[in-house]
């Protein structure tokens, strides 16, 4: 069985916090319920419209294959059964940065950055949640509204 790196249910709080800049892409801000994570994510709203208040499951996985075979980096065409079947919106990208929150404090939070071909994601939360991640890791982001 595939080992997921992260899974949680988020609630969309804001869309385009800095104003709408792009026609087809919006930046959403969402909070998770279980781990109290903050997420900023660029979503192609043309193919997957979202609105404030939406609740959705978000999963980060290293591979889409159900048996956990690591992703080769090459895309294989064909309708094989995969993790994506259960989700509505799937993106593929790369984790490029892990850093600690710049504003220091007693309970410092860790930020995880990933880019899905230019659509960016920032996940902020407790350091322990970041332990599964590695730099330059290939990531699949899967979303499903609940």
């Amino acid at each position, binding site marked *: 069985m595939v080992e997921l790196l992260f899974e949680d249910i988020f609630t969309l709080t804001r869309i385009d916090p800095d104003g709408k800049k792009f026609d087809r892409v919006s930046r959403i801000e969402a909070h998770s319920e279980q781990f109290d994570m903050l997420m900023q994510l660029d979503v*192609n709203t*043309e193919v997957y419209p979202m609105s404030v208040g939406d609740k959705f499951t978000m999963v980060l996985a290293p591979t889409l294959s159900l048996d956990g075979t690591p992703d080769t980096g090459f895309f294989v065409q064909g309708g094989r059964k995969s993790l994506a079947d259960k989700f509505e919106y*799937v*993106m*593929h990208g790369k984790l490029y940065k892990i850093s600690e929150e710049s*504003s220091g404090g007693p309970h410092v939070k860790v930020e995880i*950055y990933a880019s899905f071909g*230019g659509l*960016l994601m920032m996940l902020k939360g407790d350091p322990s949640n970041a332990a599964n991640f590695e730099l330059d890791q290939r990531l699949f982001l899967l979303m499903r509204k609940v």
Partner: protein
Amino acid sequence: MALVRREEKLRCTKEPFIEDVGPRRIKSLRFSMFSGDEIRKLAEVQVWNNKLYNQDAKPAEHGVLDSRMGPANKLGVCSTCHGNFTECPGHFGFLKLTLPVLNVGYFNLILNVLKCICKRCGRILLSETEHKQFLKKMRNPKAEAIQKNAYMKNIRDRCKGPRCSNCGYVNGVVKKARASLTIVQDFGKMLDKSSDDCRAALSHLKGNQSCQVVHVLTPSKVLSLFRKMLDEDCELLNLYDRPEKLIVTDIAVPPLAIRPSAFVDFGRSSNEDSITSILRNIINTNSILREDLENAAPLFKCMDCWAHLQTQVVEYINSEAPSLTDSKYRGLIQRLKGKQGRFRGNLSGKRVEFTARTVISPDPNLKITEVAIPILVAKVLTFPERVSCHNIEKLRQCVRNGPFKYPGANFVVLLDGTRLHLKYGEKKNVAAELKYGYVVERHLEDGDVVLFNRQPSLHRMSIMAHRARIMPWRTLRFNESVCNPYNADFDGDEMNLHVPQTEEARTEALMLMGVQNNLCTPKNGEILVASTQDFLTSSYLITRKDTFYDRATFSLLCSYMGDGMEPIDIPTPALIKPVELWTGKQLFSVLIRPNAHTRVYLNLTTKEKIFSKPDGICPTMCPRDGYVYFRNSELICGQLGKATLGNGNKDGLFSVLLRDYNSHAAASCMNRLAKLSARWIGNHGFSIGIDDVQPGEHLSQQKRKEINDGYRECREFISLYGEGKLTLQPGCNAAQTLEVKITGVLNQIRAKAGDVCMRELHWRNSPLIMSQCGSKGSPINISQMIACVGQQSVGGRRAPDGFIDRTLPHFPINSKTPAAKGFVANSFYTGLTATEFFFHTMGGREGLVDTAVKTAETGYMSRRLMKGLEDLSVHYDQTVRNASGGVVQFVYGDDGMDPAKMEGKDGIPLNLDQLFMKIMATCPPGDKDILSPSEITEIVDCRFSKYDMSLEGGCSSAFKKSLSDFLDSRLAALRKTRSALQLDENHVGSRHSNKIEKVAANIAGITSKQLEVFLGTCIYRYHLKKVEAGAAIGAIGAQSIGEPGTQMTLKTFHFAGVASMNVTLGVPRIKEIINAAKNISTPIITTILNCDTLISARMVKGCIERTVLGEVAESIKIVLKNSQPSIVIKLDAQRSEDLRLGISSEIVQHAILTHPKIKLKPEDVRVVNSKKLRIFLPQGNRIKLQFELHTLKSILPKVVVKGIPTVERAVINSDKGKHHLLVEGTNLLAVMGIPGVCYEKTKSNHVIEVHQTLGIEASRKCIINEIQYTMSTHGMSIDSRHMMLLSDLMTCKGEVLGITRYGISKMKDSVLMLASFEKTAEHLFNASFSGREDQIEGVSECIIMGIPMQLGTGILKVRQRVDPLPELKYGPDPILS
């Protein structure tokens, strides 16, 4: 030739042994003079006949065109060597003058010699001891030519005494007569009292006959005097040869080859060269003179004739001599001097074959290294290729095709050197008989190396080597990415093409001048060959966050990049569900690394123009996507624009590729980008229309509001000004303050309108896109089109008054409103009103005039710089030396680094941040544990102690420090992360021990491998960046300073902190610095104070600024009492107190007494009390006294009582609560001496004054700083190494020498070089007078003589070790040793 023939007649019984020395090389060149005898010996024929041709159109015997001097035209044959027009080099003739005449070129030198010698016995007018002293100095072998000239001047000054110590003759003063070219001896001053008698005796004669005692020194007199001179005296006067050679007795008639005669009108008359005509005139006059002398004609007639001969000889040498009224001929000097003259036109630059020139046009499908050459051109330009087994079939085909079919050939050169033209004869036979070793001059083919050039060639990238691509049509074509180095556009520009003719030349051209090897400018190391215009626009649009492509489109775009010829790995789509979509950024990742075999891992970050920092999170999350981040050749984020892809940056994509990989990686990436974007934008379409410049309702409203606000503010200022309530700015009067304030407000209007435009326009707006990605246009341009054109300025001010007190009659008198002074509130879209239009043309005209003027100005500046710096190069011992071996710098630029290879800002060798990022990304930590801070320091220290990090190993301490500072900052970051995550700062646990430990490792951990690779790369690359021996660093420096000069706007003023203080900038300022001008237009001393409070600044200002008596006196009155009239001065103590001047009556007394125009004795100026003085004038005539009193009263208010007289004014400048003074004026020494001034930190912008006050090192620094400052105000960055070199050259002789004709003549001692620069004739005449020897070492001399120069690849010399010959023993070996 003639000599050889005569020798042949001499029969020798034994063949004399003549050593074959092989080809000879000219080692040096000595300038000297010919005597009449020597001229006669050299000549083949005496010339005396004034006829040119006989009746049968043959050159007349003994005429100026005598055939013994060579053939006069193509038809003739030389009767000396029997050669024709092309073979015969020509032979000299001579022309004997009846009476000697002066040579204009030597006129001043003759005058100088005459001043120094006795006019009776010809001995020098020096005492015995002085004679010996000077002779010793002159004979000093170490004395340079300049020094000798200085001694000679000294001697001339010492020779003022009239009486000759040898013969006792009293000499008069030798001077040039008022009439041209006669030397006279004036006894006027020698006359004593006895002459009065003489004058009295003559007085009864009619007319005012002044008793002038002037003797004319005729040329023959001078000649006889010179003959009498001793050799020792000649030596003293720096004469290399006998002085009589200075006088012309015979003229060498030059060979006909340099003055051909051409028949016109079918042989009825001939067209003669100027020199032939002048010589003919001389022959005429000469014969008349001889006849006159022989027939004993009246003296005045002979003298007239002699004078006439003199002027004609002058005309022969210099037809522009001041003594001549306009001449229609060109003399010898005119042939040599000037741009088209022999030196600059034919010797320093020559016409060449194998060149082409035509219009250029763009072609993005070509590689950046290629140039498309029309077939038409390729058929004319050929390359001589030697036949070998590898190319014989190809060349056979070429020969068969002949000169008219494209891949053909024009000539075949056989082994014995005969050339076969393929136009005639049987091509097939020639092709069949082609043998190895033949040379075929074949047409240009694909891949040939050609040099490509566009004028003006301001820097070395103006001529580069490309690979040829033969294409149809008529233009030269190249990739637009290469427009920048040539500064070319396609609006009708033409460019030149040259074909190197040997394999050596090709290789050298490719290695040194190839486009790939010149991607960076040596000016500052920024990339020059990079994407421009449409490439930027399309990249910007492709990488937008919301461009998505489906599989078909994405694959199509991928195939655009390389003509579908290279394998491409399609990445996983960014969006897998609900539909497969790729983003434009993924396309760019493919572009940089098309397939897994391309091992290019690009890592870089840049900030684009649109970047705005998001708060609290990583800058990659910029909401407008302006932060570009490439990680391992994947575009993580950012919309690409000029900062990443364009030219003029050091951390853009292509620069990083070039530094981290190689030029090939960068070039192939540029090729792919050019193809992709040209094709993409062709499909996508990009255009501009009227709707792009139509402002929306909201925009118009905003603009109206901005303009109304600005106008209201201006009105308020104007009304305040009218009431006189305007608060003044420091150093300004009310009108100036008003101008400054209004200008500020109006400039803001346009800026604000621009901001509104940028904010309000739709993102699809074409001008907006172009401005944001940096391909064309600025926000100001957009604002001018859409919102508001803005303030028009003429000469840096608002429009001037063309009518009485107003700009145009449309406005009320003295109107200062924005509209009346040239503010254009309309946009180009709405259209300008009549007055606005007029103001706009005023501004536009200034711009046009400016460009026209500055081209000439900067061109001359570049030429001077080049001549000054041309021969400086780096030698194998790292020193920078000039051609004669004089050291200019011990290490180039203080660290021996090549400016073209510098990666960091401000000429720092490496960009450590970028490099560290790359290493961290390309060397993944894997499972290795990270290092603890102490381990890191240990490894670093260990590496630093190795040889290649030591000073002897060639590592500068600055680099070592920067590297260790950087590592310290990394260590600090590591510690900070660990403490934030509540881990032990100094002890690092294993990666697997703890979750948090792993996170920390991911955030800031460094493994030992990473550190090792990082240090290794840094040090390795640092050592690669050393400047190579032989680099012509001088020429590069001159270009690097000259080229930016052309881009500077001519007249710019700048406010040095304070609005009222203008500083000259731009080209005039650079000129001042380079010329080492004694008087500069705005000398400013920046004074730092010991105590930077306002009060102390005011006190120092009071001390520095000039205070005149009129300003501190309450009254200056004339008191007329019957006893003694006087002037009473009352001082205003209150005022003096307020301004903290501290002026007492004693100071005033002192000031009055020392004033140069007032001549009073101390007792006349009496101090009554501390605020009252009384001045008495010496008794005398009452009326006269009255007048004197009034003049004195008018002078007195202007007497300077305190301050430095040369200072115009001092302005207090406040910077963050700290005050310092800006002093306008000179006298740095006095300013430094004023109490309260921190003299160590006080600076001046006057180079010469700094030299006089602080010394040569300070002036060196001053030159560097001033050039740097001037360039930076124009937004130009130039590597400081170039400035250092320039200022080192200017100061290396111990005084500040300007790069002018005077300075350069002091720096260099090559006559040829100086003659090819300026004042050609003067240098040549002086050189032959003192017998100068030119060693042919420098660049100019080598070019003139056609010898390879000792620079660049020419620095290399091969020497062979020759084993010493075995010693031969005479006699048998000794029996007992």
